[in-house]
């Protein structure tokens, strides 16, 4: 898989990578052979994907025959990034001719917006123009294009106007969260240079001995002839200028950041490989103790819930035994017989002013009598006592039948 990164800056910078290795870096001028050169390189190297970094012009005015990249509200105005439709179409023709399936475009302003934090101001330089981008809580607050000779003054004005105290030099800025490291050290004259590439194809070069700030490294197509140039003096001067310090502006210098970050990398690796033994032991003990804790919870759950199964089985067996025993007892009992005789007899012995509500015959006899106000339960007792043994009489409320009030008595009997 060969990936191409094309930065459409003042001159087009093309880099090809394969399996985290830079295999080609070239700077192409926008002359009448530009598209031919691009086609030749891309087709010869059989490029699979390409990421184009565009530098759109942001303006409030509408234009015809342009592609829009991104829209930002700056103050009360809406700025839209525009790219020449003709130029992009030509590029697309080249990519289509090479049959590149994966083509992505990314505008530089999107990268600024992505990397820039709130309250920061960014300076990025091309050959003769500098762009200053400020950002506040609402997003990008200002975009200013200035020439190099007026950069310092413009930067100060913007910082004062937008209360920005932190400035980032994007020429040497590397966001280490987004850096993709390419494992090829190259020898640039007497220096060893480590080449890095951000995820957007924004490539940087780091000097491994931390003594020289490298702005650009030039390769040939075979990575043989190399030269380098140090940091742009103008930008460096601005970032170290006393004027900003007078206004209490906090200046973060990207080269310093690079050095500190670069130095941190081997230290980080070292600390990982020499992790202290007590720390490892504590980690192990912590894992074991958490594992024990989980086991304890499981055991508790088992003893409080699952282990009750034998008890529930015993209860279930006892319940069935109880039922079967009752059933056997019932089968051993003699069924109710001569019920008609008993009913007729009880009906015949019922005194006047007394009604029978119900007669229940099972093991014993229970008769519900309704005794009117004119009657007396004693007469019932008298009528029954010669033939039945009265086990008990209980009064169980009042009932009204045909507008006559009766007192309800339940009499429990057994035959003599």
């Amino acid at each position, binding site marked *: 898989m060969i990936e191409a990164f094309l930065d459409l800056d003042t001159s087009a910078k093309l880099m090809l990578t394969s399996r985290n290795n830079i295999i080609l870096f070239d700077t192409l001028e926008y002359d009448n052979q530009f598209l031919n050169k691009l086609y030749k390189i891309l087709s010869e190297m059989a490029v699979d994907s390409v990421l184009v970094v565009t530098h759109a012009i942001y303006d409030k005015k509408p234009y015809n025959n342009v592609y829009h990249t991104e829209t930002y509200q700056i103050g009360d105005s809406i700025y839209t990034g525009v790219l020449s439709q003709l130029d992009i179409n030509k590029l697309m023709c080249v990519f289509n001719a090479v049959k590149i399936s994966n083509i992505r475009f990314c505008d530089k302003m999107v990268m600024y917006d992505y990397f820039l934090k709130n309250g920061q101001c960014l300076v990025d330089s091309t050959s003769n123009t500098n762009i200053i981008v400020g950002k506040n809580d609402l997003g990008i607050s200002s975009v200013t294009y200035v020439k190099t000779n007026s950069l310092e003054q413009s930067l100060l004005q913007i910082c004062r106007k937008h209360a920005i105290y932190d400035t980032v030099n994007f020429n040497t800025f590397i966001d280490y969260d987004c850096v993709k490291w390419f494992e090829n050290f190259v020898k640039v004259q007497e220096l060893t240079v480590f080449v890095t590439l951000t995820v957007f194809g924004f490539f940087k070069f780091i000097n491994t001995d931390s003594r020289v700030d490298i702005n650009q490294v030039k390769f040939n197509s075979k990575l043989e002839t190399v030269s380098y140039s140090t940091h742009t003096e103008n930008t460096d001067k601005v970032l170290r200028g006393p004027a900003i310090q007078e206004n209490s502006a906090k200046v973060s210098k990207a080269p310093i950041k690079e050095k500190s970050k670069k130095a941190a990398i081997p230290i980080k690796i070292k600390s990982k490989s020499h992790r202290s033994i007590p720390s490892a032991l*504590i980690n192990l*003990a912590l894992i074991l103790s958490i594992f024990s804790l989980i086991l*304890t919870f499981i055991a508790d759950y088992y003893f409080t819930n699952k282990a009750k199964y*034998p008890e529930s089985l015993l209860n279930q*067996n006892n319940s069935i035994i109880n*039922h079967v025993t009752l*059933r056997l007892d019932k089968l051993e009992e003699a069924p109710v017989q001569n*019920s008609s005789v008993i009913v007729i007899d009880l009906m015949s012995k019922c005194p006047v002013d007394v009604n029978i*509500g119900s007669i229940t015959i099972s093991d014993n006899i229970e008769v519900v009598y309704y005794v009117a106000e004119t009657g007396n339960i004693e007469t019932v007792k008298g009528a029954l006592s010669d033939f039945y043994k009265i086990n008990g009489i209980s009064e169980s409320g009042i009932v009204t039948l045909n507008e006559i009030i009766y007192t309800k008595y339940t009499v429990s009997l057994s035959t003599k």
Partner: protein
Amino acid sequence: MRIKTVLLIGVLIFIVAYGWRLYPEAYASYQHNKDCEKASADSSTQLVELQKDLDEALVTYSEKYNCPRKGAYYDFCNQFTESGFTISKITAKKLTGSTSTTIASYDTIDDTHSITDADLLEIIFITEDNEILLNYLNSGNFAIDKIVVYPTDNAVIVTFVVGGEI
């Protein structure tokens, strides 16, 4: 590092405290379960014996008395309707518990799955003369568990003991 150490000590203290509480409970639970398992095995043996006795008793009872039997509930109820008695309601009951099942019509009584393990069958008769029904019940050698007669309402509730399966 310091946080991890504090966390480790906290977890260890919790485990010890939790285990201190859990151990006696776990041992008591283990002993209790062991007793339950033994008692359960004994009761299972007893249950098998009792079930055998019950099956035999049901066969004898069914031969001796006219009782409703599993698979022949319809025939049992039909003998009353053929003799001119009106069945108002049929309810299947168990000896233990208060569960009872009301059967909508005796025509489909044998298909009612829920009464296959009924112990008692309660039938409410509506009669013009209670005495005729009572005489019929006396003469039929029925396995009656209980009779409730309502003289003023001409209604009789008869509870029959359910016999063995056909």
